[in-house]
């Protein structure tokens, strides 16, 4: 499906938690709440200018990141596009160094040199977010190549969006991954809009997964607002990758509830459309409802999870606010390992 106006899983839109331990589903919910809290807190700070350079919020897309990360360990590598807070946090990145990077502080993961589009923590297997559409899939491709060369049994996941599905590089990457049978999970977060361009105005053919199938690898569409569905698809993909059976393409149908940029006032979609997704397909509300239905969560328990998410984010803001700005005298340091000795003039 190219448009995002029809239900994607069936009339009740419920989440099937069969076979998933309650503790695991609760951990997913906690992580999604942390992501939601992080972006809900950082967004106004970006609008106010405390966070320079703007921000891309993934609010509404949390289940894709958490579902994929749920099958990965620290030695499995993930790379993410420009909208990446959810993926970084899902992979286990410390919200404090993320927030400090957003603030442009020395304690940020790039020392204030990157910003929100260049988050990374190689210690948890997060090989960076990426400001170039489709670019992150290439980094994950390379990580998977290294894993395959070493035969170390690990795998990588590369994320991009429906916008990336219209770049040539993405399909070069898919072809090479399939040709070399690399342990790569290719994740397209189809949120329906490339910045402000509706996918139906930009894409020939039926589905992105349909395009991918032409490369001879398993290509599936999943409900990206259903964390359990994403988890199951990712688990199959990871099993294939680790077993030497090559890459899998997952098109996760999702939706961003906020603008492309934080503070955006776009006229490209209706308030009714956004509201429909908010009411019917919020991944957090759906998981909460499923856990309530199974008797594993009540309102008190949910309130506690939400409070637990708020704590680390407030701590991250305090950490970022208190952190030092980078020393301007260091601006030219560490460009390469070998000193370049480029002169600066009088």
């Amino acid at each position: 499906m190219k448009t995002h106006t029809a239900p994607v899983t069936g009339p009740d839109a419920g989440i099937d938690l069969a076979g998933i331990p309650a503790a695991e589903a609760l951990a997913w919910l906690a992580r999604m709440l942390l992501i939601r809290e992080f972006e809900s807190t950082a967004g106004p700070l970006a609008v106010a200018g405390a966070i320079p350079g703007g921000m891309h919020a993934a609010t509404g897309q949390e289940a894709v990141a958490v579902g994929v990360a749920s099958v990965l360990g620290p030695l499995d590598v993930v790379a993410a596009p420009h909208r990446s807070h959810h993926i970084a946090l899902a992979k286990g990145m410390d919200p404090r160094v993320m927030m400090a990077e957003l603030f442009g502080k020395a304690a940020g993961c790039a020392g204030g040199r990157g910003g929100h589009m260049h988050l990374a923590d190689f210690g948890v297997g997060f090989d960076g977010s990426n400001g170039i559409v489709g670019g992150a899939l290439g980094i994950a491709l390379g990580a998977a190549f290294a894993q395959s060369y070493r035969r170390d049994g690990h795998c990588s996941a590369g994320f991009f969006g429906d916008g990336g599905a219209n770049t040539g590089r993405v399909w070069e990457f898919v072809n090479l991954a399939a040709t070399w049978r690399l342990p790569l999970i290719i994740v397209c977060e189809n949120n329906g809009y490339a910045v402000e361009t509706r996918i139906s105005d930009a894409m020939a053919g039926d589905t992105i997964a349909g395009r991918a199938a032409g490369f001879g690898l398993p290509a599936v569409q999943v409900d990206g607002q259903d964390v359990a569905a994403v988890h199951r698809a990712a688990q199959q993909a990871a099993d294939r990758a680790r077993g030497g059976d090559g890459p899998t393409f997952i098109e996760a149908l999702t939706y961003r509830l906020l603008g492309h940029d934080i503070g955006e006032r776009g006229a490209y979609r209706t308030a009714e459309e956004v509201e429909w997704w908010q009411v019917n397909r919020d991944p957090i509300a759906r998981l909460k409802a499923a856990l309530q239905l199974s008797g594993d969560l009540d309102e008190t328990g949910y309130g506690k999870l939400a409070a637990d998410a708020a704590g680390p984010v407030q701590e991250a803001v305090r950490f970022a606010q208190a952190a030092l700005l980078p020393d301007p005298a260091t601006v030219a340091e560490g460009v390469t390992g070998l000193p370049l000795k480029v002169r600066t003039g009088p």
Partner: protein
Amino acid sequence: MSSRTTLSRAYRDGLAEEMERDPSIVVLGTDLYERGGHWAQVTGLGQQFGRDRVRNAPISEAAMVAAGAGAAMNGLRPVVDLNFLDFAFGAMDEIVNQAAKARYWWKRPVPLVVRGTTGFAGGGAQHNNPVETWFSHVPGLLVAMPSTPADAKGLIKTALRGDDPVIFCMHKMLTGARGEAGGPDDLVPFGQAAIRRPGRDVTVVTYGVMVRKALAAAERLAGDGIEIEVIDLRTLMPLDLDLVEESVRRTRALVVAAEDYRHGSVGAEIAAELQETLFGELDAPVLRIGARFVPVPHSPVLLDALIPGEADVERAVREALTIASARRPR
């Protein structure tokens, strides 16, 4: 230990020796395993190291370089062989936006080599772009351009033992250039130019294919008692301005002879730096030899009209000396 060989062969031998030493080195590109590359640059390495380490790739430059950059960030030392560096245009994002920046952001080393040919030859406009200068304008990349077999071997070894992304430029017309090459541990450092011929009258800074033309011009000028000092830059990033300056302090005149377009070139950078630091010590303006600013034409007579030659070097040296002689004490 040294032996007489060709530039292409010396590169290949340097790569092979490093692959023997370091199992994390892997070469990928089109037509490598069986053919040995389009310039015989990896002849026999497929049989020697197997398909896993000498990998044929689809004609997907973005994918090849992305695979190399991502793998370099994750413990491998890939050599992405594009055959022609003109084909790097299909992977500019992967080179410029990905490989070149990871260290600045995250202190993450990216030990990636992207190798290919550059420079003018027959074959038309799309296979002969002189692109070496483009990459020296990108913070985060190193750029090597050897003119001798010894440097081709020594520089690729240094590249493969370093931690930075390197654009390794080999001029097509030097593929069969003969000369000595060093042994397994003869490394040529980046950022150290070489004086190919000492001289007292004019410094000629050059690199790549123009080194031989400058040396030929030096022979002709020597017949008239003019002794030029020929400096081979060897790497364009880092650029060894210190040696150039030291030489020009002695000769008080400088000609930059590159095959690349004059406009916006490494020669322009050198001229600009030298007028800034040695303004009072120059007896003549810095003169530059370079190609006319046109796409590379097909017809050999047009191509000859484009490519700077030894006569151009000779003429520029004589002009510099004419200007200088009016200012020099007798």
